[in-house]
């Protein structure tokens, strides 16, 4: 087990503005680590993109797994505090990545059309009212997912189809409330993406899953 990224540069003050890594984050790290041979040998990534990087823990870890400087690691977050801390986390762990403050992937398409080999998203997934999704409070925005916790996820799913390269993989964290079955069915129906549950765990009352998607190769 590769040690998780060092986060000791982040203060409790910082965590008032950026999502603190939690069980969902660590489930993401586990899923990536379990897949490392597959990622290195079969995907052989050139461009990785994480949407909503928060502290940058996931992409930094991915950089450690793949080897620094062997891929382009791109991170976006709508929260400028998050992109700033993402860059610091990478530096703290001697990883090179690039962060962009934006809404999902705005500005990166069409340039990244079918060019992303590893796509990661730990979205705001908690069931809330629709208004909370556009909260001005960055912490609230980090978890507020609206109806079924699906409002941000549903905006992002079509982007996955635009972004993913022919042998790319897409990892998405969801909880039971998000109706994972329905997400998988939709990805198959609309984009012919294959899927499997890559990891899961019970966190309190909440069941968390990492869904993994890839293009049907026929």
């Amino acid at each position, binding site marked *: 087990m590769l040690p998780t990224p060092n986060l000791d540069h982040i203060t409790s003050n910082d965590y008032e503005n950026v999502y603190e890594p939690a069980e969902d984050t660590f489930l993401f790290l586990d899923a990536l680590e379990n897949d490392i041979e597959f990622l290195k040998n079969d995907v052989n990534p*050139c*461009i990785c993109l994480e949407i909503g990087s928060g502290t940058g823990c996931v992409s930094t870890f991915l950089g450690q797994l793949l080897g*620094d*400087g*062997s*891929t*382009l690691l*791109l991170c976006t977050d*709508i929260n*400028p505090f998050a*992109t*700033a801390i993402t*860059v610091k986390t990478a530096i703290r762990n001697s990883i*090179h990545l*690039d*962060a*962009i*403050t*934006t*809404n999902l992937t*705005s*500005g*990166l*398409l*069409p*340039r*990244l059309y079918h*060019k992303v080999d590893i796509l990661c998203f730990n979205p705001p997934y908690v069931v809330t009212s629709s208004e909370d999704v*556009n909260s*001005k409070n960055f912490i609230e925005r980090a978890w507020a997912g609206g109806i079924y916790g699906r409002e941000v996820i549903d905006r992002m799913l079509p982007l996955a189809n635009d972004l993913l390269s022919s042998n790319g993989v897409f990892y998405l964290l969801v909880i039971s409330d998000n109706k994972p079955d329905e997400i998988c069915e939709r990805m198959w129906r609309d984009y012919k993406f294959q899927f499997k549950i890559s990891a899961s765990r019970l966190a309190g009352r909440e069941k968390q899953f990492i869904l993994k998607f890839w293009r049907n190769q026929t």
Partner: protein
Amino acid sequence: MRLVVHNMLQCHVKGCDSNNFPLRLFDVELEIHEIEFNPQFLQSLLPKLDWNAFISTANQIGITSLPQALPEEIDEDFLKNLHRILFETHIMQGKMVCSNCSHEYPIKEGIPNMLLNEEEAEEEAEVEAEVETEAEED
């Protein structure tokens, strides 16, 4: 922001869909941060680069050591120079301006901000709405 990332960004203002790439750089402050040379990775990235956009951007910030077209035969010296420009040259401050609609995207402390006024305006509208309801309650 490194030049390789600049090569991936384009204006996304609604209705702005021609002549919106590459974004022109202004008032830039550059820094060089070294990173290990990885020719294999660099070669795999080359086909994903928009070379014309890259050359014109490099020219804008005074880098003129690159050929107008990607050479047929690529040697190590060429790759090392490319590595320096694409991966080690960071734009720390400045702005990117769309040639078509003139929208400005700031770069601060090395991070580009692609959020549109629209989104910001939406937030402001929400704040105003809140203020109004508060005023009504009073």
